[in-house]
């Protein structure tokens, strides 16, 4: 023994040299490095989304700048950057500044300010170079006022009018303003409630009466006795509904009338004034005079608005509740559709079809389907589901609504089915693998008990394969929830007037078009008038989409793990 050890000791270097590649260490480094790069990219991405998404709603201070030309400017500083001023720009500057820029190798710094007041300035963001600024202050009484229209206003509340009484600047306190504003918001909500849901209900009933009449006309002909009977009843009912409608209208008008008594007059830093109904104000706060607690309050109320309200101002402001809801409903419907479809297809392929060239070919095709661009699925969904299946359904079941399509156009059902088709390969492949992993001995055990093939699959194979199938479903849901391109063809819209699920019979309206977070990101980020204003919304919406997908996946993973625990208690 001893001699052997010393022999090895004699030439350690030689052995070490030949062993290095054999141990595979360079490989290890490459693998580790690749993994590190991958992970750091993912983490960087998440940090970017999370940071930008989380800070967007936090109230920022408002700087009031006195520029060297004597004018004033108020705004939230958004970001700073270095830039190279052009030649003409430089020539207009005084010598000292020019010298300063020269020393900085031709670079000057500038800051982007969110100035708001789009209705007054025709812009709401402005770059200000540092050399333009004479003085920067943070006055405590400058307000950030979010409005229903025109974006935010940055300036000072000048006066408040309640009926004939005018409260002047001196006595407009934050507390009074808040109290008045609270009442105004209540009035606005009340008007909205009457106009949207109460009058909406009546409109719906009028519409259904009209459809009943049309149905009768289609069935019996316009000259029949039955039609005349229905028609008489129709007139009667419509008259009654019209009465109710007029009453509600009047009620709304009276609230509007009293609402118009309350107005606020605002003044920007340069003295320009703007008067608007108080109910048009969404939120107002003195940006520089807030305690930390108040800031958190504003932050929370903005999030609440974002999560529970409908969008305003071409989707760049307000909330995204319809989009959250649409994404959720569509993803759930998709999972409900793709699960049975994918599992049945995989069961047939793996358990029943004779394993041969044909099945191998089909399997390759299914795998390759995952590589078809998703927009192609969108085209197929529109052509097949909406224009063929949907149009046929319309003709058979909803002839009275034609030529307005019911199912014959994009809708949440067709979108879900299109995505189900898109994600089916994922489920099929995962299910096939899970089925193949069920030990043959278990199937034999079941068959030996006198179970039929279907009973064996139903009672033994499927339960055992369930966790694997769930994994496939989770992957499919993650893929489907983030898909945008095909949805643009089969039912997603910029603004959906109604949710796909509501309180009116039949409660789930599968034919309705819907909003979707992914499309919302695209729409806000690339289709809105001001990309700078849209940027924070893009981050917040992305954060929300990621969170929604994560929540749905976590739920599915939780279910899978419970199944796993059930079927994988340790052996022996």
């Amino acid at each position, binding site marked *: 023994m001893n001699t052997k050890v010393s022999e090895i000791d004699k030439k350690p270097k030689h052995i070490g040299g030949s062993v290095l590649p054999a141990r595979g260490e360079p490989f290890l480094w490459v693998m580790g490095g690749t993994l590190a790069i991958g992970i750091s990219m993912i983490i960087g991405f998440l940090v970017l989304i999370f940071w930008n998404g989380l800070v967007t709603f936090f109230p920022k201070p408002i700087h009031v700048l006195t520029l060297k030309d004597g004018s004033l400017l108020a705004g939230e500083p958004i970001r700073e950057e270095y830039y190279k001023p052009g030649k003409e720009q430089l020539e207009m500057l005084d010598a000292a500044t020019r010298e300063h820029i020269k020393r900085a190798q031709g670079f000057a710094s500038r800051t982007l300010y969110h100035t708001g007041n789009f209705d007054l300035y025709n812009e709401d963001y402005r770059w200000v170079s540092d050399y333009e600024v004479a003085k920067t202050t943070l006055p405590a009484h400058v307000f950030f006022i979010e409005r229903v229209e025109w974006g935010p206003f940055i300036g000072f509340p000048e006066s408040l009018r309640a009926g004939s009484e005018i409260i002047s600047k001196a006595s407009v306190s934050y507390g009074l303003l808040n109290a008045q504003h609270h009442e105004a918001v209540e009035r606005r909500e009340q008007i909205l409630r009457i106009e949207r849901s109460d009058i909406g209900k009546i409109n719906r009933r009028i519409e259904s009466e009209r459809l009943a009449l049309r149905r009768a006309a289609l069935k019996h002909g316009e000259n029949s006795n039955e039609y005349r009977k229905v028609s008489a009843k129709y007139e009667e009912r419509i008259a009654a509904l019209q009465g109710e409608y007029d009453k509600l209208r009047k009620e709304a008008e009276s609230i509007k009338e009293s609402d118009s008594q309350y107005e606020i007059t605002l003044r920007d830093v340069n003295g320009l004034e703007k008067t608007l109904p108080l109910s048009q104000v969404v939120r107002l706060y003195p940006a520089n005079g807030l305690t930390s607690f108040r800031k958190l309050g504003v932050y929370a109320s903005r999030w609440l608005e974002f999560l529970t309200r409908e969008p305003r101002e071409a989707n760049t402001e307000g909330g995204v509740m319809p989009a959250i809801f649409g994404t959720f409903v569509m993803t759930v419907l998709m999972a409900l559709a793709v699960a049975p479809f994918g599992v049945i297809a995989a069961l047939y392929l793996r358990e029943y079809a004779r394993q041969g060239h044909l099945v191998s070919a089909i399997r390759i095709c299914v795998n390759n389907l995952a590589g078809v661009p998703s927009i192609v699925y969108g085209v197929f969904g529109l052509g097949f589901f909406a224009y063929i299946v949907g149009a046929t359904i319309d003709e058979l079941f909803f002839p009275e609504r034609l030529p307005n399509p019911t199912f014959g156009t994009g809708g949440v059902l067709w979108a879900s089915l299109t995505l189900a088709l898109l994600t089916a390969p994922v489920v099929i492949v995962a299910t096939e693998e899970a089925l193949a992993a069920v030990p043959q*001995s278990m199937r034999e055990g079941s068959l*030996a*008990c*006198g*179970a*039929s093939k279907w*009973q064996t699959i139903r*009672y033994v194979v499927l339960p055992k394969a369930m966790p694997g199938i769930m994994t496939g479903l989770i992957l499919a849901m993650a893929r489907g929830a983030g898909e945008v391109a095909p949805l643009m063809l089969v039912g997603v819209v910029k603004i959906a007037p109604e949710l796909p699920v509501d309180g009116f019979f039949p409660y789930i309206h599968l034919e309705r078009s819907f909003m979707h977070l992914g499309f919302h990101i695209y729409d806000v980020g690339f289709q809105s008038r001001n990309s700078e204003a849209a940027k924070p919304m893009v981050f917040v919406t992305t954060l929300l989409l990621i969170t929604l997908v994560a929540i749905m996946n976590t739920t599915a993973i939780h279910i899978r793990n419970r199944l796993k625990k059930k*079927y*994988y208690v340790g052996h022996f």
Partner: protein
Amino acid sequence: MVDSRVTYTESLETINYPKHGGRGVVIEIKDFSLWYGHQQALFNNTLSIERGLVTALIGPSGCGKSTLIRSLNRMNDLIDGLRTQGQIHFSDENIYNPNVDVIGLRKRMGMVFQKPNPFPMTISENVTYPLKVDGIRDRRLLDETAEKALRAAALWDEVKERLHANALGLSGGQQQRLCIARAIAGDPEVLLMDEPCSALDPLATAKIEDLIYQLRGQYTIIIVTHNMQQAARVSDNTAFMYLGKLIEYGDTRTIFTNPKHGRTQDYVTGRFG
């Protein structure tokens, strides 16, 4: 190896063979051959299994014991490219007739496999599985059957507290006894056992041998084993197979103490090479 053979021959003398006493033939294998694709695995085997007795199938690895026992309940049907010739009669019906009800046949023959294969269900659901596939939903009947089968498989006392726990949480030996309980819960006529103890320790093996001894008479049992002592201890009749052919079949005592064929002699004494 040499040592063990001495004790082995000694122990043969002391083994208390089960009493011989068949009550007629229950399975009759007539000139049965089987091919896996082009490879022939069984060659013209003829053999009658007696009702109520324990029949052991022995022979070197790869000689076709599993193939033969799996032919009895047509488990081999699952294999692609399988071809058979000859007949196997069970209660005077050729089970290889094309119109035979295979599911009904399997219900009359319980099977226990080499590796325990409990289903991913609770213990009681496992045992009552044969009733479940028959469409029986009567709770009381299911519970009674489960208890009876578990008692018969000498497992009741160990699991009665956790009938609704997952069966995969049992030990290997317990799992195998659970599989035996499952096989007899369907009240079969024949019990087929393919090396039921090969994955078990001596203590668990002894328990299962006890069990076989107790089930003898109630069921016709066919057991494949590599363990000569086990074959000698539990069986009434023994069949020795070699390269797909049945070499010798008869009374266990005769096969082990006074075989006619040299190969049998070599195999049972462990002189096989």
